[in-house]
């Protein structure tokens, strides 16, 4: 549990949610409330602020259990629609990673490759209820004699299908530009040569971890919206880095915190989760995540009240610096600038475009608000993600 001052408890807030009396607003609406009524009144008035994000999130995948076959197989190699899943877990369990591409994909042999099908797409096909070809191979044992198994299945034939993403919902992220003379096909999208365009990938003011920058309310046990269903934060994510650069408010100015999340694919909806093909890069998964932030004190009202004008990110060269492992900040930009469509840099006005869907992020925050208004309570984190002390200005 966090050591912060709690002026309105989880119990109080959940009690109000159960009675249908909780005041819930989205992180897009909160800045206006804080601006007109002040932090103190906003804290007293609002119980929960809902957030949302929808974008390509690598480090995603699924644990699938396809049930025991007859005769039994101890699968050591597993494929779904010719995309290999890691089978070294148990007899009929595997882990399907979002960035695994289909066997025999031409990759980048003719650059840029299109990467039309991979693990992320299999996850989407399963959630959509489409048919998927399952193939498994084994060396055979006394208790598991079968050596090959092949069957066309749907998600209903799987005993379990758990989305388990070790690193999602990055708290802030790089903004990309290309200073080289060549077109670059990156996970930050297509970047034209000579600073032709700028891309960014965050929902900014709506993004979950940017609304609770010290992870006071987000930790193991936090209940979330994941791909259209209820899910949970299971741990802090890989590469979680609370000591990244912060501004005078305490808000992170670059990629910092991350979360690991889990949910039941059988309850998800492809409106909020999609396979992705990134030209020249590979496949991945677009994930929709929403997290409710309980407003336990004025500081949380303050942070959820910050808007795109107050949140900054670093402009990085993906032409030369980033690939060489020397990313340096070329400029600090706000999400308000990025969302205006143009960023001023080196005397030029450069078009900026997003890679994460703001309309979907907004939809998720609104759906989550409806859930809470209908009784979805706020989870109490049992283990806090690593953080740093907050120095109030």
């Amino acid at each position, binding site marked *: 549990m966090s050591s912060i001052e709690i002026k309105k408890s989880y119990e109080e807030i959940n009690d109000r949610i159960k009675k249908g009396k909780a005041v819930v607003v989205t992180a897009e609406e909160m800045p206006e409330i804080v601006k007109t009524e002040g932090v103190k009144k906003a804290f007293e008035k609002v119980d929960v602020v809902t957030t949302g994000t*929808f*974008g*390509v999130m690598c480090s995603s995948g699924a644990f699938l259990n396809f049930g025991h076959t007859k005769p039994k197989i101890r699968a050591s190699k597993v494929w779904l629609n010719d995309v290999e899943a890691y089978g070294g877990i148990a007899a009929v369990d595997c882990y399907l990673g979002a960035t695994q591409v289909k066997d025999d994909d031409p990759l980048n042999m003719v650059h*840029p490759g*299109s990467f*039309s099908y991979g693990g992320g797409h299999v996850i989407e096909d399963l959630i959509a209820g489409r048919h998927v070809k399952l193939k498994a191979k084994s060396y055979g044992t006394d208790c598991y004699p079968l050596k090959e198994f092949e069957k066309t299945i749907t998600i209903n034939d799987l005993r379990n299908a758990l989305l388990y993403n070790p690193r999602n919902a990055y708290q802030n992220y790089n903004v990309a530009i290309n200073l080289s003379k060549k077109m670059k096909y990156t996970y930050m*999208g*297509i*970047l*034209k040569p000579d600073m032709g*365009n700028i*891309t960014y990938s965050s929902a900014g003011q709506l993004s979950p971890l940017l609304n609770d920058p010290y992870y006071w309310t987000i930790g193991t046990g936090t209940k979330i919206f994941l791909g259209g269903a209820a899910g949970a934060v299971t741990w802090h994510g890989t590469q979680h880095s609370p000591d990244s650069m912060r501004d005078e408010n305490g808000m992170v100015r670059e990629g910092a915190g991350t979360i690991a999340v889990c949910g039941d694919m059988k309850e998800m909806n492809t409106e909020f989760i*999609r*396979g*992705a*093909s*990134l*030209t020249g890069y590979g496949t*991945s998964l*677009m994930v929709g995540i929403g997290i409710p932030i309980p407003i336990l004190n004025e500081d949380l009202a303050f942070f959820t009240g910050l808007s795109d004008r107050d949140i900054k990110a670093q402009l990085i060269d993906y032409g030369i610096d980033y690939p060489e492992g020397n990313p340096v900040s070329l400029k600090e930009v706000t999400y308000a600038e990025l*969302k*205006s*469509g143009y960023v001023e840099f080196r005397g030029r006005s450069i*078009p900026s*475009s*997003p*890679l*994460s*869907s*703001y*309309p*979907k992020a*907004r939809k998720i925050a609104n759906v989550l608000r409806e859930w809470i208004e209908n009784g979805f309570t706020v989870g109490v984190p049992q283990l806090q993600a690593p953080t740093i002390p907050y120095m109030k200005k």
Partner: protein
Amino acid sequence: MKSINVLLIFKKEIMYKPIIYRIAKDFDIIFNVLEAKILPKLEGRIILELRGTDKQLDTTISYFREEGVEVQTLAEMIKRDEKKCVHCGACTAVCRVDALAINRSTMEVEFHPDKCVACGLCRQACPVNAMSGTAIDREI
């Protein structure tokens, strides 16, 4: 005055005839070359913006067809699957003519087919395969 974008395909039999010259001289069309690709001795492809009255444009298109030029209106070439599009905005990074542009109040990606020049870059940029259709680099 109206403006349309067309892809013209000149098969090898006619690819060295001065056809475009005549649309300016005989039909008084204002044209602007947006993109061109010559596959020597095989095929010539050119994307033109044509400006003129409805009548001038109709006459010009009929003339192209009489000469054996394959004409495709670009507004009908690239399509967006509304069910697949997630409005992420990745396509707006590469669209050179603002046929795909973000509405800043809703942050949704709006598609204006009339502005499209069928360059096909949006198909490359789209992570969810929502854009389809032929472009200047289509197979022969």
